[in-house]
C-alpha cells in the first residue's frame, strides 16, 4: 500500500497520519498483553514498575510469584481440573461436531438452516444466560458441582467452533473421493479414516483447538456450576482478582499468554498446511 505517485501533499500528510493512527491502535491492542509479563517478575508485591525495574537492576526482578504459583496446591489443583475438563470436553465436542459437520455438508441435508442455527446457538446465546439455565437445570438433575456437569456444558460451548471449522474445510471437499473409495471396496469406516479424515484434519484440529481454548478460558459457567472439587484456573483467577489481586495472578496470566502464543502458532502452521493441501486436492 504505497503512496500513489499522483498523490498530493495533503494526501501524503494523511498517509503518515493514518499510519500513526494504526500504530496507536495496534499499541492499544497489544499493550495489555505485553505489560503484565515484565510486571510478573516484580520483586515487590506491586503492580507498577519499580525504580529498580526501570533501571533494569537485577534486584528488582524475581521469580517469587512463579514460585508461589508452582508451590500452591490450590493452583496446581486448578491446573489439573482445567485440563481434565478441557481435554474431556474437547474430545466430546470434536467427535460430535465432526460427525455432525459431515451430515450438514451432505447435499441433501433437510432443514439445514434451522439445524445449523440450533447447533451454533451455544455460541450466540450470552454466556450469562447459558449459565443461568444450566445453574437451575443442572441443579435439578444433580449435575451441578460435578465434573460431568461442567464437561457437558463446555462440550456444548465448544461444538459450534468445531462445526464451523470442519464445515469450512468440507466446502472444498470433493465428494467423488468418497464414492471412489467405496468403489474400490472400502467400507464407510475405512473411508472415513483413510480418505475423509486426512483431508479434513486441519479443520478438525483447529476446531478442537478452539473448543479447547474455550474450555480453558471459560469462567462464567464454571463460576456458577462448579463445586469445590472442580475449581479451575480461571475461577481461581476470578476470585483472586475480586479479593486481592496479587502478583501471583500476573504470573499465571503470563503463563497463559505463553499458552496462547503456542496455540496461535499451531493454528498458523495448520492453516499453511491446509493451503498447501488445497493446492494438491483436485477440485
Amino acid at each position, binding site marked *: 500500500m504505497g503512496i500513489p505517485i499522483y498523490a498530493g501533499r495533503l494526501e501524503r500528510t494523511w498517509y503518515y497520519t493514518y499510519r500513526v493512527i494504526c500504530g496507536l491502535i495496534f499499541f492499544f491492542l497489544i499493550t495489555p498483553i505485553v505489560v503484565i509479563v515484565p510486571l510478573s517478575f516484580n520483586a515487590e508485591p506491586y503492580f507498577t514498575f519499580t525504580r529498580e525495574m526501570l533501571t533494569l537492576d537485577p534486584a528488582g526482578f524475581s521469580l517469587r510469584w512463579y514460585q508461589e504459583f508452582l508451590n500452591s496446591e490450590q493452583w496446581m489443583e486448578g491446573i489439573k481440573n482445567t485440563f*481434565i475438563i478441557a481435554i*474431556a470436553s474437547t474430545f466430546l465436542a470434536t467427535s460430535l461436531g465432526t460427525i455432525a459437520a459431515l451430515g450438514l455438508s451432505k447435499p441433501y441435508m433437510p432443514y439445514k438452516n434451522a439445524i445449523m442455527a440450533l447447533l451454533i446457538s451455544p455460541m450466540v446465546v450470552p454466556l450469562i444466560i447459558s449459565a443461568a439455565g444450566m*445453574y437451575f437445570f443442572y441443579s435439578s*438433575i444433580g449435575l451441578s*458441582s460435578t*465434573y460431568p456437569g461442567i464437561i457437558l456444558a463446555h462440550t456444548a460451548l465448544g461444538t459450534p467452533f468445531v462445526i464451523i471449522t470442519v464445515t469450512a474445510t468440507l466446502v472444498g471437499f470433493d465428494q467423488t473421493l468418497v464414492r471412489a473409495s467405496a468403489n474400490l471396496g472400502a467400507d464407510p469406516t475405512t473411508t472415513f*479414516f483413510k480418505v475423509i479424515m486426512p483431508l479434513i484434519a486441519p479443520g478438525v484440529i483447529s476446531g478442537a483447538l478452539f473448543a479447547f481454548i474455550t474450555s480453558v478460558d471459560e469462567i462464567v459457567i464454571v463460576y456458577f456450576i462448579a463445586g*469445590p472439587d472442580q475449581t479451575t484456573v480461571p475461577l481461581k483467577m476470578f476470585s483472586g482478582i475480586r*479479593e*486481592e489481586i496479587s502478583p501471583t495472578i500476573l504470573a499465571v496470566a503470563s503463563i497463559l499468554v505463553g499458552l496462547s502464543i503456542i496455540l496461535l502458532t499451531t493454528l498458523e502452521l495448520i492453516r499453511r498446511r491446509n493451503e498447501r493441501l488445497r493446492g494438491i486436492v483436485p477440485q
Partner: protein
Amino acid sequence: MNHAFKTTAVAGVTAMGLLAAPAATFAAESLTIVSWGGAYEESQRKAYYEPYTEMTGTEITQVSKSANGLAGVRSQVEAGNVTWDVVDMLEGPAIRACDEGIIEPIDHDEILKPAPNGDSPSEDFIPELGECFVPEILYATLFAYNAEMFDGDNPSTVKDVWNTADYPGKRSLQKIPAGNLEWALMADGVDHEEVYDVLDSSDGVGRAFNSLNKIKGDVVWWSEGAQPPQLLADEEVSIATGYNGRFFNAQVVEDQPIEIMWDGQLFEVDGWVVPQGKLTDEVKQFLRFSTDTKRLADQAKYISYGPARHSSAPMVGKHKETGVEMSPHMPTNPENLKTAIPKDAVFWADKGDSLSERFNAWLAM
C-alpha cells in the same frame, strides 16, 4: 505420518479420559467446610481444622464461598447433590435457610460440649443460638482509616466519615444496604439505639438514603471482605468499612498504618450451619470439637473476633504471632461497645429484599 499422528492423538485422549475418570470419583475420608476466605478462614484453619485433622485423620477441604453460602446450599439441596458438609454463615441467612428447611435443625445440648464448669451449651452460648445455627464468633463491621492520610487529625465518629471537607479522601463501603443505612442515620444525628426504630418507617428509609446521597460521589464500593484493608493500605481510600478482624490483621500483623474507629460498630453473630442431610456423626464430631470452650478461645489468638461462649471469654489471651493483648481489640470489649449497634437479623430477614432493591436502584441512579 498422518496415521501415526492420529493414533497417538486417539491414544492420548483415551488415556486422559481413563485418567480423568478415577480423579472425578475420588473421595476420601474428608469434610468440605465452607467459609469466608482470607484471615478469618486462616484463623479457623489454625484453631479448628488443623487440630481436628491431627486428632481424627479426617482431611478438610476448604472452600471460600460463604459470600454466596445461602445460594450454594439452596441450589445443592434442590439438586439433591449436597457437596458441602458444614457452612460458615451469618445469623440472618441462617434464619432464612432454616425457614426454608435447607439446613438441619441442631440439638445444641445433645451435640455440643458443655462448658468446663458444667453449664449446658444452651446456657453457655450467647442467646443467638438459633434453631439450625451454632454461633462461633461475634464480629463487627465498622470503620477504619489510614492514619497516614490525616496528618494527626484522625476521624473518630461516624459523623466524621460523612464530613469529607475536614476528613478528605474517598470512602469505601460495602455494596449492600445493611450497615450503610444504619450509619447513614447515625451520621444524620439518629442515636445508635434508635436506628432500627427509624428505619422501620418509609420516611426513615428515605432519610437514610438522603444521608447516603451526601457521600455517594466519594464512595468506592467493595464486595469481598479482603478488599477494604487493601484499599486503605494502597491509599485508594482514606476511610473504609470492613470486618474488624481483617482490619486487626492489617494493623497488627501486617503493620499497616490502619486504625479502627469503634463508634457505631455493627456487631453480629457468625456460626456454623449444616446443609440438609449432612448431619452425620462425622459432622457432629466436628461441631462438637470446633465449638468447645477451648477452641473458640483459641481462635481469638489468631483473629480479633469475640468467642460466642461465655466460658471462652476469660481464656482469651494474647495474639499468637505478635503477642498483642487481644481483649482491647474485641468487639465485645465494654470500651468498644458504648455506641455499638447490634445488627437486627430479623429486621434484615424481613426487609432485606426490598431494601436491597431500593439500594440497587439508588446505586444505579
